[in-house]
């Protein structure tokens, strides 16, 4: 299981996941605004 507080490597992997999640949220919100 990923624990971002265990090591620098895992914290970095967690950061990459957050970047991907934030990009997905932004894309969804912008898409919803364009459609409705």
């Amino acid at each position, binding site marked *: 299981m990923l624990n971002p507080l265990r090591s620098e490597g895992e914290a*970095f992997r967690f950061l990459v996941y957050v970047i991907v999640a934030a990009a997905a949220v932004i894309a969804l919100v912008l898409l919803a605004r364009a459609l409705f």
Partner: protein
Amino acid sequence: MEAGALAHGHATGHHEHEHHGPPQAHRSSRVEPALLGMLLFIISEVMIFGAFFTAYFFIRVVNGDPWPAPGTELPKLIAGVNTAVLISSSFTLHWSETALKADNRRGFQAGIFTTFMLGATFLFVQINEYVHVGFSPQDNAQGTIFYGLTGLHGAHVAVGLTLLAFVCIRGFRGHYSPHEHRGVEVPGIYWHFVDVMWIIVYTTVYII
């Protein structure tokens, strides 16, 4: 394991010669003290940011106030470029740590120095943004939240830069090795946390 080593030290009579100074602190956790300290610190930090985000969502969702305040505009593009700068600093930090573990001293030094410079650039641009954004914290609730959230994060970047400065100085003095790099690892975890928080701040304050 440690108890076994201690027992071995007593049995062989070497223990008294191995340890000098005050008695070693009692440890009840399996996690290393330095890592445990950072872990607890980051958990408390999440709560502080949570309080600020609560205020943000209160005025936007509960009150339904416009964001940003009418007549004001947030510099999304400049903040976006600044976000890229800060995210890059996490990549250079990871590269630096990886280089250190591979015994690549030059790579480590270049990586950690670049990380520091990228972080300093982020902070400089953030301060420059405050100068030119055109509203103050006391103007309206939106201004208070904007400066509160970005300022809280900026303070964390300043703390992170102080830690990175120490890592840089110690790194250039050759204090770290592939086996002794806790002093890079722990500030590294903090720096990645600061970047994660900025991604959330940027997404909510500037974009959504």
